[in-house]
C-alpha cells in the first residue's frame, strides 16, 4: 500500500477532518454531546487511520511520541486542576468558570472543567494509541 497515492491523499484529508471534529467534540463537550473521552477516541481513530494507510514505522518516525508520557502528562493535568482549587482554599476538584469577551471570538466561556477534560483527552489518546501500537507491534 506504500505507493498508493490516492489512498494517502484521501487519508490526509480524512485525518484532517476527523481531527478537527475531534477537537470540536472536546471543546463543545460541556454544552453539547462530546467531551474529552469522545474527542480522544476520535483523535486516536484518526491516527489509527494513518497507521493503516501508511505503515507503522513511517508514522512512528514522523510522530515521535512516546505514549506512556501522554498518560502521565494527562493524569497530572487532570489532578492539577483538582489541586489548584485546593491551593485557593476550596475543596479538591472544585471547578470554576467565567465568561470572557475576547476579540474576534466574542463571548467565550472559560472553565477549569475544560482543562480537566483536556487532561482526560490526553490520557485517552495516549492510552488508545499505546494499546493499539503495542499490540500491533508485537511480532506474532
Amino acid at each position, binding site marked *: 500500500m506504500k505507493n498508493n497515492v490516492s489512498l494517502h491523499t484521501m487519508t490526509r484529508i480524512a485525518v484532517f477532518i476527523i481531527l478537527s471534529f475531534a477537537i470540536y467534540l472536546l471543546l463543545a463537550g460541556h454544552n453539547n454531546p462530546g467531551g474529552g473521552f*469522545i474527542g480522544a477516541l476520535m483523535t486516536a481513530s484518526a491516527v489509527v487511520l494513518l497507521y493503516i494507510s501508511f505503515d507503522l514505522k513511517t508514522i512512528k518516525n514522523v510522530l515521535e511520541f512516546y505514549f506512556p508520557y501522554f498518560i502521565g502528562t494527562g493524569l497530572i493535568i487532570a489532578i492539577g486542576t483538582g489541586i489548584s482549587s485546593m491551593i485557593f482554599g476550596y475543596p479538591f476538584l472544585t471547578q470554576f468558570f467565567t465568561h470572557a469577551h475576547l476579540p474576534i471570538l466574542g463571548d467565550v466561556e472559560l472553565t477549569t472543567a475544560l482543562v480537566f477534560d483536556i487532561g482526560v483527552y490526553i490520557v485517552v489518546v495516549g*492510552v488508545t494509541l499505546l494499546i493499539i501500537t503495542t499490540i500491533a507491534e508485537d511480532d506474532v
Partner: protein
Amino acid sequence: MLLSLLHIAIIAPFLFALVIPFFYKKIPSIHTGWFVLILPTVIFIYLLTFIPTISRGETVTQLLPWVPSLGINFDIHLDGLALLFSLLISGIGVLVILYSIYYLDKNKESLHNFYFYLMMFMGAMLGVVLSGNLMVLYVFWELTSLSSALLIGYWYDREKSRYGSLKSMLVTVSGGFSMLAGFSLLYVITGTFTITEIIAQVDTVAASGLFIPTMILVLLGAFTKSAQFPFHIWLPDAMEAPTPVSAYLHSATMVKAGIYLVARLSPVFSGSSEWFWIVSGFGLFTLLWGSFNAVRQTDLKSILAYSTISQLGMIMSMLGLGSAAAFYGYEAGYTAATVAAVFHLINHSTFKGSLFMVAGIVDHETGTRDIRKLGGLMTFMPITFTISIIGAFSMAGIYPFNGFLSKEMFLESMVEATHITSLNMASLGFIFPLVAWIASVFTFIYSMILVFKTFTGNYQPEKLDKKPHEAPIGMLIPPIILVGLVVIFGFFPNILAHSIIEPAVQSIYPYGLTGVEHFDVHISPWHGFTPALFMTVSIVAVGVLMYLTLTKWQKIYTFLRLHQKDPVNYIYDGIVKRVVPVAKRVTKVPETGLLRDYLAYMYIFLIVAVVFTLYHFGGFAIETANVAEIPIYVWVIVAVIAAAALLIPFLKNRVTAIIATSFVGFLVALLFVMFRAPDLALTQLLVETVTTALFLLCFYHLPELRNEKSKPTFKWTNVIISIGVGVLVTTMALSSLALKSKKGFESIANYFLENAHDFAGGDNVVNVILVDFRGMDTMFEILVLGIAALGIVALIKLKLNGKEDINEK
C-alpha cells in the same frame, strides 16, 4: 500505677531471657547457667519474705491495668495457694538450673536457647499462679504451653522430640482454647475476669444456665495441662526434653498448673455434684491408669512420666473429694482431703524432682535409661543410690518419709469418702478406697522397680555405652537438697503446716471461715490403728509380693494390648495422621482448576441466596400500570439484539463470533440513541469500534472455536445457571422499578438538571456530571485506562521465565 516488685518478679525472667543469648555469645568460657541461676534465687528469697504475711491469713493484691477495655488487668493476687506455687516454681527452678549446669555441656549445647525457654517458662508460670485476673492467667498459661513445647523440642533434629513437642502443643493448647471459651462464659455471666470478684458472685454463676458448660470447658483446660486421662498422652512423650526440664516442668511445676486452676476455681464451682464427680472421677481413673501403666515401662523417664500422671490424678481426686466440704461444712473431715492434696503436692515435687534428677544422672553416666540394660549400679554410684531410695520410698508411701504422711492422709480421706451419704456416694462411695488401694499397690511396685532394677541386680557392662561412675558433685547437690526436704518434711511436717499449707487451704475455701478463724492443720505420723494404716500395711505386703512375682504376671499387659503404646495414642495419632489426607481430599474436590467450576460456585451461591431471600421475605413485584406505548422500532431493535446475542454461543467461526458481539454493541448504542443519551451512544459507538479492532488484532491467530466436548450434564448445568442468572437480574430489575414507583424517593439527579447551567456553567448535564459534579469518578476512570494501557505494555514486553521468588535477585 507503678509496677510492684511482684510484677517485676514475673516480668524479670522474660526480660532476662532476652539477654541470655548475649551471655552465651560474649562470655562463652563461663557456663551460661551460672548467670541464669541468679534470678530465681533472688525471686525465691524475695518470695520467702511473704511467708509471715501470708501465714497470718492476709493476702497481697497489686493492681495494674493492662487492657481495661477488655477487662484484662495485670492484677496480682498473692495468697497462700499462690505463694505455695510460686515458692515451688522459684525454689525448684534454682535447683534445676544448678543441676542443668552440669547436665548440659556448654560446648555442645545451644544453651542460649535452653535458658531462654526456661526463663520464659519460669516467668509464665509465676504469672499463672500470681495473676488475679483470669485472662492474664490464660495469657501466661499459653506461654507455659509454648515454652514447654519448645523445651520438649530442644533437640529438634530428633524426630521424637518434634513428635513430642507437637503433641504437647496440640493437646495443651486445645485445652487452653476450651478454657478460653470457659473463661469467656464466666465473663459473660459475671461481667469480670477478676478472680475474687467472680468468687464473690458464686451464686450468680451457680444459677446460670451456662454453669455446666462453663465448668466443663474450664476443666478441659486443667485436665489437659495436668495430664489427666485421656489427655495424659502428651506427658510421656514430653520426656524427650532434657532431664532438667522433665524434673522442672513435667513433674514439679507446669503439670501442676491444672491442679492450681482446679484449686483456684474450687470456690466458684465446688458447690455442684458435677464438679465433685468429674474432678474426683477423672482424678481417680488417672491415678489408676497412670500407676498401672508405669509398671510396664522400661525407660526410667517413662516410668516417672506415668508415675507423675498417676500422682497428678491422686491430687486431683483429693481436690474433688475436698469439694464435698462445700456441702457438708468445713469443720468436718472433708477438708482433710484438701489438706492432703496440698501437702502431697509439695511432697510430690520434692521426691519426684529428685527421682528425675537421678534418672538424668543415670542417663548421663551410663548412656542409657533402659532398665533392661541397667542394674547393679549401687556400687558405682552410692550417693545416687541413696538419693533414689529415699525418693522412691517416699513415693511408695513408706515411713518415715514425707510421702508416707500424705499418702496416709490420702487413704484416710478416701475411707472417709464412703461416709458421704448424698451425691450417690452411698452406692458408689466404695470405689474411692478401692481404687486408692489398687493404685497404691502399683505405685509401690513401680517405685521398687525404679530403685532396684537400676541399682541392684546384675551389672551388665556390655550393654552400657560408658563405664558408670558417680556423678559430679554439682549434679548431686540439687537432688540431695530435695531428698533432704523429703526427710525433713517426713519428720517435721508441721513446719509447713501453719506457714504454707494452712494459708493455701484457706485460699481454696475462702468461705469456710470467718475472718479470725484458721484451719488447724496438724500432720502427725501416728493416728492410731485406723483403716488407713491397715491399708498401708496391706499395700506394702501385696506390693512386695507382686514385685517379686513381676515376671509371672507382667504378660497381662501384652494380653490387654497395652505393651506397645498407650491406647489413647491410637486416637491422637489417628487424628493427626488423618488431618492432612482429609484436608487434601476436601480441598481437591472443589478446586478443579477449571474456571467454569469456580464461576459456577459463585453463580450458584448467588442464585440460591437470592432465591432464598426472596422466598423468605417476599418482595417480588412488577409494575405494569404505566407501561408506555412501545414504538415498533424499539421492538425490532430489542428482538435483533436478543437474537444476535443468543446466536453467539452457537457460532464456530471466531471472526463471526467477534463480529456478532460487536453487532450487539452497536445496537446497544442505537438503543442509547432511542433513549436520548447522545453522549452514551457516541461513546459506545467509538469504544465498540476500537474494541472490535483490538479483538481482531488479538484473536486473529487464535484457533477456530470448537464444539465443546462436554457431558450433557455439564452443558445443561450451564444452561440452567445461565437462565437462572438472567431471570434473577430481570426479576430484581422489575421489582426494583415497582418499588421505585411506589416509594418515589426524589432522585438526586434533579439537582444536577437544576444547577448545571447556573453553578457549573455547562448545558450538557451528562458532561457536567462527569467533569464537575462527579469529577472524581472521571479522574479515576482515566486512571483505570492508563493502568490498563501500561499493563498491556508490560504484558506484551515483559516476559520473565522461571519460577517465582526464585532466582530473582
